């Protein structure tokens, strides 16, 4: 029972973090129709940004993660404008460009910070005791912040004008254009938002494990699995799938091993792509 709860906390934490990353991934695909293989690198940039702000410059933790998310988000907007704008409508070209971007970002970070792992100090130490269960405070912090971020994102998408506009463009770009929406701006903002989410996730995870230039590769794979399962373009689908994936993996990893867990996830992805390409909750476009 104890073990189950301990595993659940970690699975929950992973789930929410993956959900943040996956949300950004699916947002970009839903609006810009780009499979951004470099999405994991924005996650990685967020981690390195917090390493700089919090680890090197000594800023307090929460402002540091906020700054990291913001900076990387702005960088994302630049990226969309310079690199991806011309691939609007060319899904293959966009994919290949994202691969080139991934390579470049990994190399650039390796050159600036070296290929070695770095660690970021824990923002809070210790654990809360509930009976015989120990809940690590830093993991709880991650869960809390991600929940806040998810809630804020939900509010943004559902309630604000920007969010409604984003959804309108996702539904039908031409119609939205006719109604006076400046779709180019929306695309840039959406991409920036997605990068911000990924960067926030990276910044939060930086103290939990170590950081290195290739940490994004593993994460984007998970994000891809979640997005396919939940439906390319579906936001609630991404969250639901993140939870399913996380718990399945935690259980499979405990009883078998991590390799088998990942294999299982991919087989499920193949099955879903074949049977219901729109994913469990996605739209057929």
């Amino acid at each position: 029972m104890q073990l189950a709860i301990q595993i659940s906390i970690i699975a929950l934490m992973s789930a929410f973090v993956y959900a943040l990353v996956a949300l950004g991934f699916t947002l970009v695909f839903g609006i810009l129709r780009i499979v951004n293989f470099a999405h994991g690198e924005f996650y990685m940039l967020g981690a390195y940004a917090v390493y700089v702000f919090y680890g090197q410059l000594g800023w307090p933790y929460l402002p540091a993660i906020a700054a990291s998310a913001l900076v990387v988000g702005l960088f994302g907007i630049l990226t969309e404008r310079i690199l991806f704008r011309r691939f609007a409508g060319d899904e293959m070209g966009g994919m290949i460009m994202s691969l080139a971007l991934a390579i470049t970002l990994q190399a650039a970070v390796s050159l600036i910070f070296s290929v070695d792992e770095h660690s970021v100090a824990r923002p809070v130490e210790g654990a809360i005791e509930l009976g015989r269960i120990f809940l690590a405070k830093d993991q709880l912090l991650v869960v809390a912040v991600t929940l806040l971020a998810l809630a804020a994102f939900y509010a943004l998408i559902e309630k604000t004008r920007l969010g409604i506009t984003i959804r309108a463009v996702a539904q039908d770009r031409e119609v939205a254009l006719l109604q006076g929406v400046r779709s180019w701006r929306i695309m840039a903002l959406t991409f920036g938002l997605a990068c911000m989410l990924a960067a926030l996730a990276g910044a939060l995870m930086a103290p939990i494990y170590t950081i290195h230039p290739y940490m994004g590769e593993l994460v984007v794979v998970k994000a891809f699995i979640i997005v396919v399962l939940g439906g390319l373009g579906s936001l609630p689908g991404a969250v639901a799938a993140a939870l399913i994936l996380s718990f399945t993996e935690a259980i499979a990893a405990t009883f078998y091993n991590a390799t088998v867990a990942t294999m299982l996830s991919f087989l499920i992805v193949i099955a879903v792509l074949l049977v219901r390409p729109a994913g469990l909750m996605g739209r057929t476009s």
Partner: protein
Amino acid sequence: MSALSISQSAPRLGPLRMLAAFLLAAAVLLWPLAFGQPKFLLHIAIMIAIYGALAMSMNLMLRIGQLSLAHGALFGIGAYASAILSRDYGWPVELSFVASGLIAALVALVTGPVFMRIKGVHFALLTFALGEVLVLCFVEFSDIFGGNNGFGQIPAATLGGLLPPTRYGSYLLTASFALAVYFGLGALYRRELGIITESIHQNEALVTASGFETLQFRVAVFALSAAIAGWSGSLYAHYQGYISPDSFGFWTAVNAIIMNVLGGAATLTGAVIGAVILIPLPELLRDQQQYQRLIYGLTLMALLLFMPRGLLGLARQVLSSLRGRS
């Protein structure tokens, strides 16, 4: 109706072009003799031949408009099949080689009828997942594949003594294979295969309405592409003597795609040019690997932004503008 038109269906290379092809083959196979069989250059040339063949197999997929991210794993299936059959089952290397391509083709034939119905981004993601599953199999079933520790002591290919047991011998083998793929696929592209792929690309409904089975065709192309990838993998295994799962992942397929993009995905020659440019880079900049990757990434981005038709496309543009002026 001109007499020329029927001959278009079975275009033979004119005698001049046959001579050029022969000279090319001779040059490719014999240059090391003129330069004293330089070991390091031969190593690079062998890698170019192997990955060039893989890039050409990817070119086939690009021709039917399907970006496959599973080709690294198909390359791996060929490598492991050949390695296992020759080392653990005592098969002669030649037979293992043949079998490796056929096994990879079998994977394509089994997954093809379902996979090839799907196009575009979803197909890329599907093959990405397939590739990852296959690589994870190489890692997980370590009794058969050796797992993360790799699979070693793979016998070299000597063709029963026909080949010199030197690096030049390996080069002769791999380069001959690459030449065979180049000329073979080139011939196919000039014949019906080229007509069909171009027509499907222009208007698939029209092709189907005339009675053609486009899905079966796609599966067949996938199988051929997989076979070439598998054979390339086999040559890789027998040359290296040791293989491990990280050589067969997603990035291997991506490199094959990038070689096509670099050289110009419209032609087979472009794929080879891409290989010629890309393969030596890590070898030449061995110490500065991260700089090399940075330049690689930046160049690729620049290429995609400014030269979408690749280097060959650029060369053609330059040539035709020169001709236009004179």
